[in-house]
């Protein structure tokens, strides 16, 4: 399978990365090189093989459903580019 410039632009939109016309063209070539490389996986017979879900055979650890952490609003917003009273500030989303 290979991608065209239109697909690359659609994927960039999904990934929320702005791309110029020039970027999209360069990326199309790069992505096709990589997709060409991974193509060889199709020759592997995987009939009856389950997809891996965990590399170590272990049961997912569970914890009690209780609050163990919190009251750190100031810490959480400390690195944000724009905040007000412990809220993250973003451009207007709803008119």
């Amino acid at each position, binding site marked *: *399978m290979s*991608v065209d410039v239109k*697909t*690359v632009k659609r*994927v*960039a*939109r*999904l*990934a*929320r*990365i*702005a*791309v110029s016309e020039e970027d999209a063209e360069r*990326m199309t070539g*790069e*992505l096709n*090189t*990589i*997709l060409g*490389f*991974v*193509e*060889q*996986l*199709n020759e*592997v017979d*995987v009939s009856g*093989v*389950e*997809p*891996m*879900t*965990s*590399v*170590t055979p*272990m049961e*997912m*650890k569970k*914890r009690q459903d209780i609050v163990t952490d919190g009251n*750190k609003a100031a*810490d*959480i*917003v*400390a*690195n*944000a*580019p*724009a905040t007000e009273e412990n809220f*993250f500030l*973003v*451009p*207007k*989303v709803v008119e």
Partner: protein
Amino acid sequence: MSDLTRLTISQARAKLRAKEITATEITEAYLQAIDRANPALNAYVAVTGDKARDMAKSSDARLVKGEGGALEGIPLGIKDLFGTEGVHTQACSHVLDGFKPRYESTVTSNLWADGAVMLGKLNMDEFAMGSSNETSYYGPVINPWRRSRLDTVVMPTTHQGDGGFVSAGGSKTQRSLDNAQLVPGGSSGGSATAVSAFLCAGATATDTGGSIRQPAAFTGTVGIKPTYGRCSRWGIVAFASSLDQAGPIARDVRDAAILLKSMASVDPKDTTSVDRPVPDYEAAIGKPIKGMKVGIPKEYRVDGMPEEIEALWQKGIAWLKDAGAEIVDISLPHTKYALPAYYIVAPAEASSNLARYDGVRYGLRVPGKDIVEMYEKTRAAGFGREVKRRIMIGTYVLSAGYYDAYYLQAQKVRNLIKRDFENVFAAGVDVILTPATPSAAFGIADEDMAADPVKMYLNDIFTVTVNMAGLPGIAVPAGLDPKGLPLGLQLIGRPFEEETLFQTAAVIEQAAGTFQPEKWW
């Protein structure tokens, strides 16, 4: 006073405990060395001098009282991927500009609890994506090793130089260093260079596809990626969560064992952290390997592999045989599919993990006319080319209509890769010996690799299988190539049998010796 930066961790530990040296002295020696070398090598992206001096002072107070921890007063470098409270933590990306976490990663917390001293944060490929440390926002790291060449020098018959030097004439051969700058490998290139060039006693690193073992091999250092789940991932910037593991880079096998013992732990904050006590890895060093079964996988003999890599491998086999190990030929038939499967699984996980860099909660924000444009502009400006490439691949293989063909197929192949290893271990093989990399360190800005991303990816061809199967792997220096560059061998073990790796790597180290670059910086 002899150069304190030349001491291994085990040597420094003995001298600190015997009060022959102080933590402050050794810390100052490293800070001075960093000051002098960093402009040339670019290993550190942040030096935490004041913090280091404070930590050393506390260590000295504890050492005086005989209360020192396992790493008391040992100065370490920390890869920029580890969250360090109040200190530069950016995964060497522009998108995390100015980020100083309000928390400390579990691995670094463990090190500080054992008394280690933090010298600063180490350069790396952006978000650990790369095999040459050239994708860092902070510029490439330079390998302290340089190629050397043998020249025939005609000696003047007699010469009265400034120093009164007199020669009888004739000619001789001498080795001279080539000026070409080489990469230290990646993604833990800063860690490998800093350890190799005596800019820290040891360093933390992480390995998703070979990022500890490949740079260790390129710099003549020892690097171990432990079993998935051995070190907590909590507080480490995530790249591909099912593959990422932390581990140390050190100057010898014993130092790597000492560091891993402190870094590893059982951590309730990481659900993939495995509930097993951490053994004393150092105790495995020096144990005989007589009767151990060492597997040699035929699939690791790849086309176009340089002769010196094959020769090194044969030397390793001979050393282990001489030490009484039984050498057996084995087959890991799905080896060639590990790298292509990795380039689906790792980008897929990365595209999800890196979705959080949106200009809202931390780091860079580039304004836009609405929130979507702000996201898109921020991510376009904040991520480098390699990171964008991988996010794009990951987004594509996870997108509607392609998920089964790519991601599901890769995860099935991943199970087959793991099964290959399980089969040979079930047949009685204790450890597998392979080359660590398909070549020695290459030049900065290599044109072939810049033109074709897959060429760069092939660096990890021998290491990536280990991540796919979640196994432990160690790279240990085993010799120099004809141009005088270090080469490494890799040992792969059963899950949670890191002790076998240290035990066997120590035998290789004893036969091969240790390797230090000639100082030019």
